[in-house]
């Protein structure tokens, strides 16, 4: 089961990296004539005759209660082009191809999901990387030295764990200046995520370091005169890595959720740069969802990514922590 | 002489592996019978089989266990349940882990009485205190209200023996009852078992310490890898061992 999730994630990341190639449109390519256009089916038979993949044109009309209706125009055919202008598939203007529908501004949701994947998936990884380094360093030092060093560092951890995650995130976000450009916002979000999660990682590492410290091979290294830092780096930390991996996977999933949460209320990555979270901010009002349910698709992807990380993390934990192992006795 | 317990051709296996193979022996009334062997010999499995408390993966493939005239293996589970604790008691190796840490020792004895007898609250209380006195637990009233972790090791073991005896069963299965105790306490527990035998209780003693067995038991059965290697009166088996393995065991405990 974990292997399926692993490959699913690899596919998602692959598609994210190659978003430029896979998406028919750039993420900010708008066309207000096609606002909330439903998904356009790719057709193969034109009036009963085989005709290569293409898309019919659509015309916008309004029905009796002023709702949008997109009427399929059978006279306008836009054949799909493959590998044109560096994109896997596309259609010529003025035709538009919306595999998964369009958002309020007529932007292709299919494309935006892959561009958004870049942001959402990478933020999780980067945030965890920073948290992990912080957690390793602080947890490792606290666990190894013990005593008052441990005491102070652990109080520091508790301080960070004391404020509920979302509140801490908002408070930190409030400190970020308004005029940051998108790159700076991205970096700030990464840093904020890292700051809310490092504390629990550090505690776990510290616990492991504390127990490892008493083991014989550490004593042996000490008597041989190996310096403390070398001991921490070469002996204690590698042992903690296997169990940490499980926790890391679970942390990535919580960071992806956290970024989505932040973006959906407009405090994370800003429009027009897409992230799965801010793609969903359209959907937060009930009304658009009722008429254009396809705008909920990014949520499905968040779910898939998070679920995969959770399953992998759980599987890793089962493998490494004897407490969780369930024997069939 | 009545045999309280008669086991015949008991075979227990898990999957394709046989843990106990065609073991037969009797436990007469008022005698201490020991099952000896190294680890993996299947002795604990036999003890659990008698109570029908084997883990799900293990099955009793063959054999009969006749206790007080009835084949236990054929009994409906309700009847078996009423037999456990009331007619057959069990003493475990590690007393701290055999008690629920969240209830007092007294409460845990009381619930056995409540499950098997119709005694009233004060009657049960008195019976528990009497049982504590019988196993020579000092200050029974205080012990009643203690949690397991508050008692010392020796007192806990006595409490566990008390828990097994509280309904006056005719058979006690003792699984390595002294392995976790130090030598002085071991002697005391052995004396306790000897006193129980005088009260006409039978004890099935599962152990690997032949030294203790030679002092305490009347008969002994030697097991190796689930097979019965030798059996007979203690003086005979230990004094004049016939099988190689028995000799090895004896030497290990000289």
């Amino acid at each position, binding site marked *: 089961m974990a292997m399926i999730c692993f490959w699913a994630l690899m596919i998602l990341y692959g598609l994210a990296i190659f978003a430029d190639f896979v998406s028919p449109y750039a993420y900010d390519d708008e066309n207000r004539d096609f606002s909330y256009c439903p998904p356009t089916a790719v057709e193969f038979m034109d009036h009963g005759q085989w005709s290569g993949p293409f898309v019919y044109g659509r015309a916008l009309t309004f029905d009796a209660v002023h709702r949008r209706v997109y009427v399929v125009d059978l006279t306008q055919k836009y054949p799909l082009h493959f590998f044109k202008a560096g994109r896997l598939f596309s259609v010529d203007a003025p035709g538009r191809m919306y595999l998964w529908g369009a958002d309020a501004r007529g932007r292709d949701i299919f494309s935006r999901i892959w561009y958004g994947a870049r942001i959402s998936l990478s933020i999780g990884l980067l945030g965890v990387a920073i948290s992990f380094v912080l957690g390793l360093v602080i947890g490792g030092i606290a666990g190894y030295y013990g005593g008052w060093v441990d005491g102070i560092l652990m109080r520091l951890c508790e301080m960070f764990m004391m404020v509920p995650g979302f509140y801490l995130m908002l408070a930190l*976000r409030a400190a970020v200046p308004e005029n940051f450009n998108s790159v700076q916002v991205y970096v700030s979000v990464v840093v904020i995520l890292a700051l809310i999660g490092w504390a629990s990682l550090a505690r776990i590492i510290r616990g492991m370091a504390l127990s490892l410290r008493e083991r014989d091979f550490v004593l042996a290294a000490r008597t041989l005169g190996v310096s403390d830092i070398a001991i921490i780096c070469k002996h204690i930390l590698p042992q903690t890595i296997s169990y940490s991996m499980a926790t890391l996977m679970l942390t990535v999933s919580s960071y992806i959720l956290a970024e989505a949460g932040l973006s959906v209320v407009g405090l994370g990555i800003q429009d027009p740069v897409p992230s799965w979270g801010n793609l969903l901010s359209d959907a937060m009002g009930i009304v658009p969802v009722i008429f254009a349910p396809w705008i909920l698709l990014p949520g499905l992807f968040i779910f898939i990514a998070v679920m995969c990380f959770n399953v992998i993390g759980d599987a890793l934990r089962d493998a490494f922590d004897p407490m969780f192992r369930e024997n069939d006795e | 002489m009545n045999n309280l317990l008669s086991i015949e051709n008991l075979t227990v296996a898990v999957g394709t592996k046989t843990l106990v193979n065609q073991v037969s022996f009797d436990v007469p009334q008022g005698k201490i019978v020991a099952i000896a062997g190294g680890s993996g010999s299947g002795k604990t499995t036999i003890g659990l089989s008698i109570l029908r408390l084997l883990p799900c993966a293990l099955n009793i493939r063959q054999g009969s266990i006749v206790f007080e005239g009835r084949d236990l293996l054929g009994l409906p589970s309700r009847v078996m349940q009423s037999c456990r604790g009331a007619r057959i008691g069990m003493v475990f190796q590690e007393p701290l882990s055999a008690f629920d840490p969240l209830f007092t020792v007294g409460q845990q004895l009381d619930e056995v009485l409540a499950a098997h007898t119709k005694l009233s609250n004060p009657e049960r209380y008195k019976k528990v205190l009497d049982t504590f006195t019988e196993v020579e637990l000092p200050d029974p009233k205080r012990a009643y209200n203690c949690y397991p972790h*508050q008692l010392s090791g020796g007192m806990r073991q006595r409490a566990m023996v008390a828990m097994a005896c509280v309904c006056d069963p005719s058979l006690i299965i003792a699984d390595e009852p002294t392995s976790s105790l130090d030598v002085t306490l071991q002697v005391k527990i052995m004396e306790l078992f000897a006193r129980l035998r005088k009260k006409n209780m039978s004890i099935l003693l599962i152990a690997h310490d032949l030294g203790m067995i030679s002092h305490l038991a009347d008969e002994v059965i030697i097991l190796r890898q689930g097979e019965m290697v030798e059996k007979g009166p203690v003086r005979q088996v230990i004094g004049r061992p016939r099988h190689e393995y028995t000799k090895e065991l004896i030497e290990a405990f000289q």
Partner: protein
Amino acid sequence: MINHTIRRLCSTVLLLLAVSFFTFWLMHTTPGNFFDTLRLNPQISQSTVDRYEKLYHLNDPFPVQYWHWLLNICRGEWGYSFYYNVPVTHVLGSRLFNTFILSFTSLIITWGVAIPLGIWAALRRNQWVDRVLSIFSFAAFSTPGFFLAVLVLYMASRWGALPLGGMHSPDYDDMTLVGKIRDTALHLVIPATVLSLSSMASLQRIMRGNMLGILRQQYILAARAKGLPERVVIYRHALRNAFNPLATLLGYEFAALLSGAALIEIVCSWPGLGSLLLTAVRSKDVYLVMSSTLLAGVLLVIGNVLADILLTLVDPRIRYEKSN
């Protein structure tokens, strides 16, 4: 036990101070003197601005400002909300209560459902019940809370029986007391359910794990060997032991609850502390942000302390640690 509790209280107070300092410093690093913009705001009288400038010693160095802010907090003067145009305390009070209702209801639902489900899954291990619950749990805590909220709201809009957000109907003030309670309860259904779903999932798995671990213990075998009915073995012995470690979790649950509640509040338009904080952050309402964050920290601490006390009450090993 009393000593232990007192020590814990002291360290948590210190921690709270540290949190407040950190929050204050954070607000301070926001560029621009916040009060300059205020002076330009015609809605706020000059005297109010002056009053607060003096109260908070805004022209003094940073540590002095912090000290005065802290003193004011203790005196009940929590600052002024410039977005709402009232002192912070006026806004915080009712919002806090609303968040509390939501969190508390959710807590009850979560624990009320997850514990029995966890037990059930443990007792029917690897059978279809267990597997279904397992998949469901994973799915539930992998779904973003706000997404689930939208989905549920969508379904509710189709169904039409439940109100779609907010806390009160328009005619709330005209209702009788019973009517008011019923109205609030109806509005509570969707947010509380969504909030409960994800914590329910992890709690159920934990309970299941605990149960399975306990069922392997020697004293469960001993209880069966004593001839106790299976019902007694499970519900009297196994359950109590499996449940105890969860008391520590209660503290963390509280944290996750407050955190998760914030986002759900926003999506469901439930007027609580979380949505308040969001508005405050968006409008850079400094004192409101600081106060909300501090308050959240305080709630968390109280929750943790209560959980600790609960644990010592429930586990005799901890209670009688020193008395032997």
